[in-house]
């Protein structure tokens, strides 16, 4: 059995980082949040473009994302910054995060006076939380306390034969030790739903998998039906095609290797945390940022991201481990990529041989070793999914 060193939280899974998150309830507070973060080491900013002039499901998705990210175990505590007149109230966000038992502070710009006064107060609140966080010691946890987010982006043909099967092997090991993992990017599961449904723990879960993927396909059909949009309808990118991926089904079948071979415990709604441990499908579109934000909002402490073409992106406060099956990409993008699974292709190494190395990397990351995306200060992946018109 494997273990990692993390930070115990008042409830739920342990954190693998011990940061203080500064989160605006609305985009109007972004600059105040950024200024606070710039003045206090040990904080991360979670700025975003939403929080007002939204209704219905769209506003609810924003609320779920911000609450989920605020509750994330990698954050010791949170400073919530509101403007004062926004739709998504700072207090609703702060109360939801505080319900986990972690320290939360809140300030509202219009109540403080102006942004300078808000920044000054926010810096003091953030400093206090950082000092408290620094006193917390790491503890040893079994792998059953780890939830891995699974993602791919910039897929090429090596992803399906090297990087994704290797990540799938790691997923199988973690789930076998009682841990958890989440597959998502439902737009990119289209065509593989029958394979996934066969792996469901019950017929009801199987049905839910089919419904979730069919719903996503129908949304896409509606969104691309207009004749003016015919050249905007491809679900795979030119980079995928250049890399040898011909159809969306081929991409999906290669992509689901990330989820290993074990049973699928359930389907989670966007922002929904897991209750029982196991392998889940999270209902979220395939956009890299939206998917990783969804994985973070559902509590994945570490994300492993496979990429054939090579992508540098990261998420504020959540390590994103980059793995490629393409040795040439690895050699060119060493500053951005954490792990090369290309020896499966170049040297004929077996998936378990390479997988053992990736599992070690994942455990080291969970114990505090920074990823290339963290070292490079990459934070592009915080991106809240939207829903227009239902």
């Amino acid at each position, binding site marked *: 059995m494997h273990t990692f060193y993390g930070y115990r939280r008042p409830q739920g899974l342990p954190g693998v980082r011990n940061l203080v998150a500064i989160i605006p309830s609305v985009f109007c507070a972004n600059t105040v949040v950024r200024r606070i973060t710039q003045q206090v080491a040990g904080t991360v900013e979670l700025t975003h473009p939403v929080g007002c002039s939204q209704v219905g499901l769209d506003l609810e998705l924003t609320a779920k994302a911000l609450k989920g990210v605020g509750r994330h175990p990698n954050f010791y505590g949170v400073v919530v910054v509101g403007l004062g007149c926004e739709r998504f109230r700072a207090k609703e966000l702060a109360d939801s995060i505080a319900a986990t038992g972690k320290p939360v502070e809140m300030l509202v710009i219009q109540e403080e006076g102006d942004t300078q006064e808000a920044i000054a107060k926010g810096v003091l609140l953030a400093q206090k939380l950082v000092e408290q966080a620094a006193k917390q010691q790491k503890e040893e946890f079994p792998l059953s306390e780890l939830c891995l987010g699974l993602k791919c982006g910039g897929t090429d*043909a090596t992803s399906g*034969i090297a990087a994704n099967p290797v990540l799938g092997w790691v997923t199988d090991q973690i789930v076998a030790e009682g841990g958890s993992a989440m597959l998502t990017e439902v737009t990119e599961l289209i065509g593989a739903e029958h394979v996934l449904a066969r792996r469901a723990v019950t017929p009801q879960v199987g049905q839910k998998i089919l419904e979730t993927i069919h719903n996503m*396909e129908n949304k896409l059909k509606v969104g691309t039906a207009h004749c003016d949009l*015919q050249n905007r309808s491809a679900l795979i990118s030119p980079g995928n095609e250049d890399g*040898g991926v*011909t*159809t969306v*089904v081929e991409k999906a*079948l290669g992509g689901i290797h990330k989820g290993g071979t074990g049973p699928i415990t359930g389907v989670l709604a966007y922002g929904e945390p897991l209750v029982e441990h196991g392998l889940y499908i999270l209902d979220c579109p395939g956009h890299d940022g939206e998917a990783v934000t969804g994985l973070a909002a559902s509590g994945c402490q570490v994300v492993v991201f496979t990429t054939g073409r090579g992508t540098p992106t990261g998420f504020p406060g959540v390590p994103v481990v980059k793995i490629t099956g*393409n040795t040439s990409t690895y050699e060119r993008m060493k500053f951005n990529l954490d792990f090369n699974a290309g020896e499966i292709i170049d040297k004929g190494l077996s998936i378990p041989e390479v997988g053992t190395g990736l599992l070690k990397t994942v455990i080291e990351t969970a114990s505090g070793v920074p990823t290339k995306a963290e070292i490079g200060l990459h934070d592009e992946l915080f991106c809240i999914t939207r829903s227009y018109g239902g």
Partner: protein
Amino acid sequence: MLTALCIHPRDNVAVVLREVRKGEDVLVNLNTGAVHLTAQNDIPFGHKIAVTTLPVSKPIIKYGEEIGNAKTLIQPGEWVHLENVYCERGRED
């Protein structure tokens, strides 16, 4: 050393493990043993090569599952990609 990898015993295409040139000999693993094909096109690294004759509308099988159908008659050794494959799923064209 294999030139192309057939991932699943049901597959009728293989993935080339390095760039191959038209006319080049390609060694590919099939469940009946390794066989030699002659590349009918230049095929970039990671792209697919047909390992059997694929008549029009024949399912293209990779990972043991259908990834699309043949748009034209595809001969063994031919590059299998956008020009000769169609797929109804995930696009509206």
